């Protein structure tokens, strides 16, 4: 009884962790299934077929490739724009600053259905045919807000005296930015970029509004496939995505803890 009391926190933590990880475990396990019918919902027998040929299902790797391309483009552009906005908002006092602050949050607060449909309206009025370009632009719009939030938090916690110290020591404005400001803001920028990528990769609703039959992203592919059956390859891709994200986090942790120990 006493032992249980003492380790209650550990049990709670494990339970929460299990709750969070269970879906991923199921996906990983079922990626080795050889389903009886078209739906991969019941365990039948072990098979590594899907792992050996993840592109086996027609269209899946094209969809994955498109999602990665859009995700990369959108997160790079959104990170650059968002970082610039965050510096402006975090560093300077100008007319319309609070209005800008508010507007930046709008995409985060707007329901995705509203944003997706209004963007579609906009694109149609502008005469831009639906497709991956429109999807990328739409993703940039909502990713920018998240980047701004992540970077601004970092920028406003930066000590302006560090930049003064750099100038005092003979660094011109460009050198000051590259050697002092940017390295210090980097963790916020990296966090914003990762967030932007995962939001873009993940998005279904806004994407669906602005997609054409030739621009099927991975979430759209999964959704479409689920109507007719669930190919095991989806589970493989899901597992790989999870492992990639996990290893990025783990590597980051190891690097930062090693740096701390070395220093």
């Amino acid at each position: 009884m006493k032992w249980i009391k003492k380790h209650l926190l550990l049990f709670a933590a494990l339970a929460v962790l299990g709750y969070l990880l269970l879906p991923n475990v199921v996906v990983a396990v079922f990626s080795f299934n050889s389903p009886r019918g078209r739906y991969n919902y019941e365990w039948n027998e072990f098979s590594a077929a899907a792992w050996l040929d993840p592109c086996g299902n027609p269209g899946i790797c094209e969809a994955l490739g498109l999602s990665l391309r859009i995700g990369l483009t959108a997160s790079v552009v959104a990170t650059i724009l968002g970082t610039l906005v965050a510096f402006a908002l975090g560093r300077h006092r100008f007319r319309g600053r609070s209005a800008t602050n508010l507007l930046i949050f709008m995409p985060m607060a707007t329901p995705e259905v509203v944003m997706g449909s209004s963007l579609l309206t906009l694109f149609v009025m502008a005469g831009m045919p639906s497709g991956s370009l429109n999807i990328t632009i739409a993703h940039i719009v909502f990713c920018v807000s998240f980047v701004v939030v992540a970077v601004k938090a970092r920028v406003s916690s930066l000590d302006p005296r560090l930049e003064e110290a750099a100038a005092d020591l003979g660094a011109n404005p460009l050198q000051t930015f590259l050697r002092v400001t940017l390295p210090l803001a980097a963790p916020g920028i990296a966090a914003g970029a990762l967030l932007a990528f995962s939001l873009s990769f993940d998005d279904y609703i806004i994407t669906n509004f602005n997609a054409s039959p030739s621009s099927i992203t991975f979430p759209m592919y999964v959704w479409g496939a689920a109507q007719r059956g669930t190919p095991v390859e989806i589970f493989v891709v899901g597992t790989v995505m999870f492992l990639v994200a996990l290893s990025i986090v783990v590597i980051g942790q190891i690097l930062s803890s090693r740096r701390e120990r070395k220093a």
Partner: protein
Amino acid sequence: MAENPSGDLRLVQLSKEFDTFTAVHPLDLTIPQGEFFALLGPSGCGKTTTLRMVAGLEEPTSGAIYIGDTDISEIKAFKRNVNTVFQNYALFPHMRILDNVAFGLKRRGDKNAMAKAQEALELVELGHTAKKKPNQLSGGMQQRVALARAIVNRPDVLLLDEPLGALDLKLRRQMQIELKRIQADVGITFIHVTHDQEEAMTMADSVAVMNAGRLEQVGSPAELYDRPASTFVANFLGQSNLLTSRITGDAGEGLSSADCHGYPILVATENIPDGVSDVFVGVRPEKFRLGRHGRNQLKGTVTDDSFTGVATQYLVRLPWGFEVTVIQPNDGSPRAKVGENVDISWEPGSEFILDASQDEDAGMLDTGLRHG
């Protein structure tokens, strides 16, 4: 640098106005090359703004800043041969200590940057910390790194903005001695901004006292203490007893007679400001003595005493109700008790005399305690 004299630092009619107030009224100040100079004043007096204008971090509203014959007021901060030790050190947290110190040298493309930086770290006795990050060092160590980072560039002028403000008392005393030593070693002009009068007096060759954006007085610590030019300086530097008096006439031998609340006293004529007869006769607490030892004598009652080891500090109430502070050194002479009636005395000439038309409480930290 001694072999390449850069010249004195001169501020000419330098001023700074912000949107809502004037931080620095036009001021003129010359700081001789190689001097340890202190800018002293209460917070908000404009001393840091003045320093930041010299560093180039603040643009003057008017006036000019010269080093030697060169006007540097239009030169950007990063091109000025002036370095600053910031109040909270402002070390770059993402760089190693050595890279912090080498930062300035590398910006000018010095090929020996790393070796010189290591040498500068040795100067502040922190050579062993070169590979660490700033947050792994204590406050005192970070302070010394900040100093090394500035000095290594051999600036014409080194600015120190309350550099010891964040350190505890003991470390502060240690660093004061250390700073003096380093300044003597490198021979660079140091301008030290502080609100701590004791720090300014112990460290600096000359002190400029600032108040409300204006210079009150410039001089050596002894000049400022013994001959303050205003009640502000008198009260801000150490303790003062200001006796309201009226000069009544000449008493011969370089002395003048004065009337202090009906009691006759003598003062040195040379101390009297020109054309003034209503004055404050200022006597420092240690110039007073208990007993009839000096030519000026007053009677009073001890209302408080505190023994500090080196000395005893008394509060003595004079007949008209004014309380003066008297410091009696612990030299074996008999100590007085609270409630005892005593004579206090002082020698004419040990006083300073100020025009009585100014606020006698200016510059006092514990305002409202003493009125007379």
